[in-house]
């Protein structure tokens, strides 16, 4: 046994390496495999062709989320190709014995919302999903990352993955966030500082007092967007906040106190060394708005759209100019002067109950601007019911928002929820790539409170000066 101090990543990694065959990549055991309709069909088909079974169906959980309509669920799915993909997931889960949270199941929702919500996600676990936002689950002190469909098939067949150990990057955030500044603003700010590839090859561990102060759902928002800085995963060491969140959840361990005693061993040892460390100040962060076509192209609400021709890096200069052209923006425009056509509150980044409460608090007593079409898409059936019990749906509906069923919806627009060409949207999702929300659509990423304020005023508005009613 080595007595070298270890990080959270080291501990989870060491605990899951089954073996490292000579000259090969380590075989890493996977505790939880989450599955959705878009990246699994070909993997199940591969199993079928090879005559293989799912090794551990009880560690595999599936739900349709990407492709599904968010309107009336009693109606049949209009798009035959979407329907076929969802039917395929159903048939595969039935054939291979995988638990499916299907449409109509009270616990259906976005895979990265229901995993933590049901207590399927737990500290110290390895968790994968054919989806890059799997890093969300790292907020509970798990090593969670996205994989491709061939790897999905590998996990289904072997409950393991071939993986080289990633490097570790500590992102320490000192101090605290100012009032009106949220976890979403923090992570957008961090991505802006790191760049979209600053985390490549690394697992980020978020540390420091500013991170410790975040609630569980805020931590999920931060870890969720680690991939947008290129990181393999993001994680936060488990603490009392984590344990309090998990206690009593459906899939949480029955002998919870014993589990907590195990989990308390996972946080990194004092003196553990990271491959890289970056330090930021929470107090430096203001509400953020993206101006371009990747999440690192971001500025504060009090800033102006930058002039990319002044960027030093030739790649960034080129990419910034293309982005402004696509976004229909000119350098020097004040962010608060940018008008909006659409507002989307939802996605695995920001569709949990606290996100909806934050947005509803802004909206209460106001009306959506006549020029704006706004919608709220809760992350899961449970979030939706909770919000309705609290009367948040009424607040949104009274203000003129649409109130939808749970799903990924306009985060990626695989279902009918899309932007029209040229439409400009304030979105609480995670990607502002060209065409992400619909061909020709223009996406600005913001926090739920900022999205709600923009819906009311019709343009970006500094939430720090909002008059709450």
């Amino acid at each position, binding site marked *: 046994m080595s007595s070298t101090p270890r990080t959270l990543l080291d501990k989870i990694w060491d605990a899951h390496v089954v073996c490292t065959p000579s000259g090969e990549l380590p075989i890493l055991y996977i505790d939880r495999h989450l599955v959705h309709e878009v990246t699994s069909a070909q993997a199940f088909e591969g199993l079928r062709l090879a005559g293989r079974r799912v090794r551990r169906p009880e560690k595999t959980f599936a739900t349709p989320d990407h492709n599904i309509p968010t309107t009336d669920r009693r109606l049949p799915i209009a798009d035959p190709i979407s329907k076929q993909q969802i039917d395929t997931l159903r048939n595969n889960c039935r054939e291979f014995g995988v638990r499916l949270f299907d449409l109509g199941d009270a616990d259906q929702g976005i895979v990265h919302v229901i995993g933590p919500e049901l207590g399927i996600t737990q500290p110290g676990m390895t968790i994968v999903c054919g989806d890059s936002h799997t890093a969300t689950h790292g907020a509970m002190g798990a090593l969670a990352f996205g994989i491709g469909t061939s790897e999905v098939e590998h996990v289904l067949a072997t409950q393991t993955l071939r993986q080289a150990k990633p490097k570790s990057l500590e992102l320490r955030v000192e101090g605290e966030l100012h009032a009106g500044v949220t976890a979403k603003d923090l992570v957008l700010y961090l991505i802006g500082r790191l760049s979209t*590839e600053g985390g490549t090859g690394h697992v980020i561990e978020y540390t420091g007092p500013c991170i410790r102060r975040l609630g569980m759902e805020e931590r999920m928002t931060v870890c969720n967007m680690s991939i947008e800085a290129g990181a393999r995963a993001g994680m936060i060491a488990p603490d009392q906040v984590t344990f309090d969140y998990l206690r009593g959840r459906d899939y949480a361990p*029955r002998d919870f106190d014993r589990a907590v005693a195990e989990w308390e061993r996972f946080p990194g040892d004092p003196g553990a060394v990271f491959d890289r460390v970056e330090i930021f100040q929470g107090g430096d962060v203001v509400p953020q708005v993206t101006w371009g076509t990747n999440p690192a192209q971001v500025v504060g609400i009090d800033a102006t759209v930058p002039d990319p021709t002044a960027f030093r890096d030739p790649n960034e200069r080129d990419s910034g100019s293309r982005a402004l052209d696509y976004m229909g923006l000119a350098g020097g425009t004040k962010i608060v002067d940018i008008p909006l056509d659409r507002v989307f509150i939802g996605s695995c980044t920001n569709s949990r109950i606290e996100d909806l409460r934050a947005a509803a608090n802004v909206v209460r007593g106001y009306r959506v601007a006549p020029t704006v079409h706004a919608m709220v898409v809760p992350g899961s059936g449970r979030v939706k019911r909770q919000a309705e019990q609290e009367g948040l749906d009424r607040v949104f509906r009274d203000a003129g928002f649409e109130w939808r069923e749970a799903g990924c919806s306009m985060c990626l627009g695989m279902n009918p929820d899309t932007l029209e060409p040229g439409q400009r949207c304030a979105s609480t999702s995670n990607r502002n790539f060209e065409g992400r929300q619909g061909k020709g659509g223009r996406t600005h990423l913001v926090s739920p409170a900022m999205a709600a304020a923009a819906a009311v005023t019709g343009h970006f508005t500094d939430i720090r000066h909002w008059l709450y009613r």
Partner: protein
Amino acid sequence: MQPFVSHTGIVSPLDRANVDTDQIIPKQFLKRIERTGFGQFLFFDWRFLADGTLNPEFELNRPVVNGASVLLARRNFGCGSSREHAPWALADYGFKVVIAPTFADIFFNNCFQNGMLPIRLAEEDVDELFRRARTAEASGQPYRLRVDLPACVVTDDAGFSRSFSVDPFRKRCLLEGLDDIGLSLQHVDKIAAWEADHAVPAGA
């Protein structure tokens, strides 16, 4: 999987950084449940105009790169979504090799699973390849590169030669066309032993 040993082909330069997998294969094509047939949708929003005709401005549509099998790209190629449909589309279109200064992690792994070789070269070497491609194309000739995986070297016929590194396990899988899952299942006893050591008592 088809083995990959060496390859010579026409280079198609794509001179933009941070090309995300949403651009490589837009979401409307992710509803298919097959692994094949994605090439027709590659770079769909860039390759085609609104009326469905080829966009003559897009680099890959130039006649000089017709039949290209080596994609030359800029930093952070393949960032964003984990969709393996991106390498499926590139491979189905005819690409065997992608060369860039850096790649996003998930995309990089996904390439190997599909017999396609992603090669990281230093930024100045990639700059040089863009220059050479431009020069050749200016005289109406396509630019060709040869990739030798056993020797881990990229060469052209005008003196360019750079070695690259590739993980030894990934290299062996490509050279021999090995099935990852089959290899891992050779260690099924160790997997079972790990599970036995970590079994949680029923009801816990």
